[in-house]
């Protein structure tokens, strides 16, 4: 998910070409107070005008506690944003309040109720503690994300390269998202020139269970995708596992062995996930299969 400042028309005009899975137009922290209205208008017109192709369109709005939150939601729902991202989510009530505003806007602009999805960014200790309640607060919610900068400030610590200060929050968010059966997206890595560390961090959060990572520069997309893309070896193995499992199913047998290892349900699920990722990342193409 690529962050795009909502006040930068040059970046908005072709943000979709770099191959990120989602775009997050930001009306919040990257836009100064005096440009809030202009950015809202700009993102509205960009969403109405530009064909962003297969990229999912997310807008990070200002919190409802600010004078801009309500107008942001109205404009973005009207513009047809697919997902509204709520920043600094602390409680389930924040989600419910936001949902009410979205629903009101959907009614106002004749948009089917429920079409606009939501994403919640957890950026503080209270949000982490309430992660599961937040993740299950609304059927519109498709993902929760970690916002590390605010979280670290709130925790009275700072960000380190190895990320020990984030370990608990990351774990809590992954577990909450999995329990709620929604996606979880990791925070940004802000040193755009340090690709090696970006790769290390991405490998670590993938291992924790995250579905994806936020990026702030198009140059970070490729390294992140590389980490998440299954290798040809993993893909081949997944294919063999699924073939063995289908064969076992045909024979009416629940368990099967492959290369001397037992293939049970979790192994099959992991193999399916590998292939899903492989197709999504275009590491393999369905029509290529034999």
């Amino acid at each position, binding site marked *: 998910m690529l962050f795009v400042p909502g006040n930068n028309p040059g970046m908005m*005009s*072709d943000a979709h070409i770099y191959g990120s899975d989602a775009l997050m137009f930001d009306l919040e922290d990257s836009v100064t107070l005096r440009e809030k209205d202009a950015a809202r208008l700009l993102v509205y017109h960009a969403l109405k005008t*530009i064909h962003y192709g297969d990229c999912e369109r997310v807008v990070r709005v200002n919190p409802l506690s600010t004078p801009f939150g309500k107008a942001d939601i109205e404009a973005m729902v009207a513009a047809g944003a697919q997902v509204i991202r709520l920043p600094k989510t602390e409680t389930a009530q924040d989600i419910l309040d936001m949902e009410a505003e979205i629903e009101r806007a959907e009614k106002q602009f004749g948009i089917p109720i429920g079409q606009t999805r939501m994403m919640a960014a957890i950026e503080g200790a209270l949000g982490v503690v309430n992660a599961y309640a937040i993740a299950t607060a609304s059927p519109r919610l498709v993902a929760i994300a970690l916002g590390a900068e605010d979280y670290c400030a709130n925790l009275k610590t700072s960000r380190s390269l190895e990320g020990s200060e984030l370990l608990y929050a990351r774990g809590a968010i992954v577990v909450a998202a999995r329990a709620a059966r929604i996606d979880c997206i990791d925070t940004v890595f802000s040193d755009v020139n340090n690709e090696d560390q970006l790769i290390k961090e991405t490998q670590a959060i993938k291992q924790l269970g995250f579905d994806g990572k936020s990026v702030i520069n198009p*140059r970070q997309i490729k390294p992140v995708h590389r980490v998440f893309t299954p290798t040809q070896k993993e893909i081949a193995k997944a294919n063999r596992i699924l073939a063995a499992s289908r064969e076992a199913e045909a024979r009416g047998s629940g368990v099967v062995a492959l290369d001397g290892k037992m293939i049970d349900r979790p192994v099959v699920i992991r193999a399916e996930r590998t292939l899903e990722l492989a197709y999504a990342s275009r590491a393999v193409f369905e029509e290529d299969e034999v």
Partner: protein
Amino acid sequence: MTQDQAFYTALNALNKAAYVPGENPRLYDKDPVPLKNRMARENKIVESLEKAVELSGLQNGMTISFHHHFRDGDHIVNLVMDTLARMGFRDLRLAPSSLSDVHAPLIQHIKNGVISHIETSGCRGALAKAVSQGLMDDPMVFRSHGGRAAAIEEDEIHIDVAFLGASSCDPFGNANGYSREGEEKSMCGSLGYARVDAQYADSVIVLTDNIVGYPNVPFGISQRLVDYIVCVDDVGDASKIMTGATRFSTNPHDLMIAEMTSNVIVHSGYFYEGFSLQTGSGGASLAVTRFLREAMIEKNIHASFALGGITGAMVKLLEEGLVSRLLDVQSFDLDAAQSLKNNRFHQQIDANYYANPYRRGAAVNQLDVVVLSALEVDTSFNVNVLTGSDGVIRGAVGGHPDTAAGASLAIVVCPLMRGRMPCVRDHVNTIVTPGNTVDVLVTDQGIAVNPRRPEVAERLEKAHLKVTPIEELARRAERITGKPDPLPFGDKVVGICTYRDGSVLDLIRNLT
């Protein structure tokens, strides 16, 4: 020597006289002075530029030429023109291989009637702007590097006097774009374009700030072609002639275009063991070299040669053994110049060898792949590299049409938009390279293949590289930028863009 009957019979048969020492005035007397004294006494060095000009026989109305290997650091053109103006010359015809920002002082010489006509590959900066506004009575004629070489060879451009700057020259005229004696004050590497001038000009004056010992070999320009040598304070500003290695772009658009282009090359059908290539010096086309390098290593593919404007990136491929030979008509950066000086598989070539349109064997015709940048491309694949979106002259034809016509696969790279201007559009301002010689366009928002090359489109699609009709790319750009207003062109023709054979491709009009 016995001068018997047989000797005289042989003389009669050959219709020759017998050798008598000192008899033939055309033979030089044996001279026992040491070389160092001879160099001091019998060299081609003339005490001043004025003297060299007098000796060259330059007259009003004649054609003079320069090379552009010193790029924006060049001091030669301005120095010579100031001198000629002071000496009272008028109506001179200039035929430099190219002009750049630094040549703005020519405006005054044009206004004062010292210069009446200019033929060049390119023009930039204040001079270009003034020409676009109608400074000259005679339109500026633009030729490609190959077109210029052919025009000179066929005497369509007759160079009366060539003024050629050199980073080093020995007292007899062996000149180079670098020095093998200690540190040169400035280096430009290849003298490829200047070599044609040296060969065909009636009179050749080398200007240098670095006289070195004889023989300055291997030479860029042979002493055989040089008439006079003039010492100048400096031939140019070293920091503007070239610096380090051309740096890789970190612009994500450039990188994306470069990576897509590399993928296009790999799957085009022209990526095989022993293929040949040329890439330009623009951000994106330079970065192609880097991505292609990875693909060459991964697939164990080597190139037989790389051509062109050589960059440090290409030198790296030579040194890593991924490319076997470099043919260098122009060195783009210090790394390239150093390599030309030190690596015997890095060969200096002249513009005729590079791109003469009438020679089947010209190096451009041996290219499998060329990657070229563009200011604008139209839906017929015509390319403009000469005039900006404001209609002002601001570029150079260079080897663009030569390499596009020569290479088996000509790939043009260009962002879909620059700022608010669409770069893929229905019509380009100025046609520099005709669309029938352009095969693939790679933009940051998609790849288009010329319908003349369906087999290439098929190969790319088979490799899951999405091919988009060029009209669709143009529409996509227009949807965001809107349709630009027509430019305020007047009726005066200020520039003529010629094709490689001298035929007229397009006209450039003045801006009101």
